């Protein structure tokens, strides 16, 4: 680490961007602890870390989009005080966001004009003049795209090149790219990297946020690592680091192997519940805007088993859950539930067969925040409460069932009538578990079931999942928390770039799984 400190000190002297104790908090959540670091000019710097490590928060603070809770930073030796996006741009710093920032219905010229620092034309522009002047800028950036094309019709790679061209047209000297490779094909990544090297040769300093170590090693001059909102490695020349060292820093030094869940005993599972509960065969999806398409994913979950899906977020997890639950159609292959091909069935029909889901986001998918607790608990089972020639619902019975379920899962609440939105995160997750697990389902999909929960709530969720498994349920656990996966899974598979890689049996090798997640080679 002394070498790294020396580099950091050396960089401080003539750093193009220097941060002192920058901290970012959203509400009560501390996304980035006070962090100081400096970037030397004319290099490609990489910033790496797991999801939630604070990378994007750091980038957004630098770009003037979020106001840091504390700290100061200097661009070219000039302090940016309470910076706005425009001020930061004038100082020569710009960012290419992870999500594209050009409005889909705009033409290329309009979108570029919206975000550009300098105006083309006076108060009113002529569309032709605008198109002409941007065509020149685009040509200068070596980009073949018509200024009249609509943003929504552009391929992803072109849209990204456009964002880079947009930033450079504002004469950025320091360019941040937030996960620029996430949506690109391998050849697209090649071309992007070639462009980045070209920019470096022109004297532009780049800060690239990356997930894949192979890419870091390929492109970066220096690497900095964030973990859990803390800087664990200041910018350090990448030649001094190995992929193994880096993956250790990113994931955190933990015991190399963790004992897996206790092996199940087939005898304890009721005979009716044996066999494959949930399976996908060579399932694939079409390209979505957010994630790579799934390519021939096959998996099978047996009764009394938890299959863990590890992976860096955005590698197809959402698509995987959506095709299994029926929210997204499969483009090829099939999905099977309890031995039946359910590829063509709706989510509702799959639920009727016994599939239950704890979705990724409890606030937007998991519950209706404005509805009372009892409705949230019973809504999926409403048909069960029909009475009198199925015309009416038995509200009293629904409330009784809800109360029993909430009690069983230890949800703390004031009144059954209170809106679900008033519950804390942990309590809301318990409510969702109460709803999904009340009938002891045969197949459960649990997506990030403990994200954002504190220790106690996490323990509770784990206990519930384990109990379901022991009762013979098959569980697919999707998580980006390796500890959780190691703790609960009987097997782990890694999802990367829409492909499901190898099966890892216990005892789990943190390093091997971590390497598979980020595509590191040994």
């Amino acid at each position, binding site marked *: 680490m002394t070498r790294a400190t020396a580099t950091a000190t050396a960089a401080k002297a003539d750093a193009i961007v220097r941060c002192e104790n920058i901290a970012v908090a959203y509400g009560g959540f501390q996304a980035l602890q006070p962090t100081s670091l400096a970037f030397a000019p004319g290099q490609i710097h990489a910033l790496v870390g797991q999801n939630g490590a604070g990378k994007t928060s750091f980038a957004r603070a630098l770009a003037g989009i979020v106001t840091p809770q504390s700290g100061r930073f200097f661009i070219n030796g000039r302090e940016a005080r309470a910076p706005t996006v425009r001020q930061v741009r004038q100082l020569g710093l710009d960012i290419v966001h992870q999500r594209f*920032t050009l409005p889909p219905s705009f033409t290329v010229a309009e979108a570029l004009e919206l975000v550009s620092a300098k105006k083309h034309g006076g108060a*009113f522009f002529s*569309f032709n003049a605008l198109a002409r002047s941007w065509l020149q800028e685009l040509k200068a950036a070596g980009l073949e795209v018509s200024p009249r094309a609509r943003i929504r019709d552009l391929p992803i790679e072109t849209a990204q090149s456009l964002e880079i061209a947009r930033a450079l047209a504002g004469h950025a000297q320091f360019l941040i790219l937030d996960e620029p490779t996430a949506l690109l094909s391998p050849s697209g990544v090649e071309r992007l990297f070639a462009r980045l090297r070209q920019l470096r040769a022109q004297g532009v300093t780049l800060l690239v946020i990356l997930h894949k170590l192979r890419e870091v090693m390929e492109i970066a001059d220096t690497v900095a690592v964030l973990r859990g909102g803390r800087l664990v490695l200041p910018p350090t020349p990448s030649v001094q680091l190995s992929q193994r060292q880096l993956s250790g820093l990113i994931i955190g030094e933990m015991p190399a192997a963790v004992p897996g869940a206790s092996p199940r005993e087939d005898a304890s599972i009721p005979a009716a519940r044996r066999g494959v509960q949930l399976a996908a065969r060579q399932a694939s999806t079409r390209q979505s805007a957010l994630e790579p398409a799934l390519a021939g994913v096959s998996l099978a979950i047996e009764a009394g088993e938890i299959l863990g899906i590890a992976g860096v977020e955005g590698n197809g997890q959402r698509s995987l859950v959506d095709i299994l639950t029926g929210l997204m159609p499969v483009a090829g292959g099939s999905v099977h539930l309890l031995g039946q091909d359910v590829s063509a069935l709706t989510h509702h029909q799959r639920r009727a067969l016994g599939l239950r889901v704890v979705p990724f986001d409890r606030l937007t998918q998991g519950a209706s925040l404005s509805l009372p607790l009892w409705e949230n608990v019973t809504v999926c089972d409403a048909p069960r409460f029909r009475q009198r020639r199925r015309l009416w619902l038995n509200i009293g019975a629904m409330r009784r069932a809800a109360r029993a379920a909430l009690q069983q899962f230890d949800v703390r609440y004031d009144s059954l009538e209170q809106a679900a939105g008033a519950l804390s995160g942990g309590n809301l997750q318990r409510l969702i578990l109460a709803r999904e697990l009340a009938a002891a389902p045969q197949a459960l999909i649990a997506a990030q079931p403990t994200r954002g929960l504190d220790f106690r709530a996490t323990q509770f969720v784990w206990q519930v999942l384990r109990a379901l498994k022991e009762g013979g349920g098959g569980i697919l656990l999707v998580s980006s928390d390796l500890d959780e996966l190691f703790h609960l899974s009987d097997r782990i598979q890694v999802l990367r770039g829409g492909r499901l890689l190898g099966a890892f049996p216990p005892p789990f090798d943190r390093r091997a799984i971590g390497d598979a997640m980020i595509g590191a080679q040994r």
Partner: protein
Amino acid sequence: MEQFVVTTIRLSVPLIFAGLGGLFSVRAGIFHIGIEGLMLAGAFVTVAIGSALGSVWLGIGGAIAVNLLLSWVYWFLIDRLKADMIIAGLGLTTLCVGGTAFLMSAFFNKRGSMTSQVRLPQPVVGPQEGLLAYVSELSLLAWLLPLFVLIVWLLLRRSRLGLQLAAIGEYPYAAEAAGVNISRSKLYAMLITGICCALAGAELAVGGLAAFSENMTNGRGFIALAAILFGSLDPIRTTLAGLFFGLANAVGINSQIYAGASNVPRQFILMLPFAATIFFVTLRGYASGRNAPRVS
């Protein structure tokens, strides 16, 4: 026939002023349901101040000032206090409907309606007889309409402000990343809407007629919103939609005159323009599929 054309234009002018004014807000993602109220306030204040001070220009100036204030309040409610824009807009309209009736009885001791001492100039005097006799019915604002449409088109489609408003409405993330002050741009949009609605109200009260009556907008603000959606948030198409709704209205009025002796109930004919509005807006939404204007 000439009368029919002139009637269509006369009836369209307030719709187009309100529609194009509302377009600034709607493009910025604010479904401004308070347009109806702002038009009514504009009509009342023009008549009230205009009559009191004896100048239609002071009346219009006052109407603009009042609408700027009301628009600021609306902005404060929905942007700063995070009120629901539909409910706050409905509140604004209801406030104006009740408020104008109340102020009319409080200050002028009139109920139902009051006549105006002033009216907008009608700059073009046509021949007293013959084909073009009706053009003299058109007010100054009606003659200025093409210029107004051009300015709105330039502002919305050929200026930075227009790009920023469209980005805010379509994809706020883009506007944020572009360094646009979203809250301030929304305020500007709403203030412009307020000014345009003041003009729309003035045209309604002192353009052709010279009177204010309770709830005289009678749903025109909502028709203007329909014109915006029907025109898929484009200024030119919104203008055309405004003309179309004016035409439907003129058909209703004319058939009322000519079909006076027939058995068709008067109410049915008065309903026709609104039925046409619903029909065409539905048709438009159905036909446009994925390119339908997105308003939230």
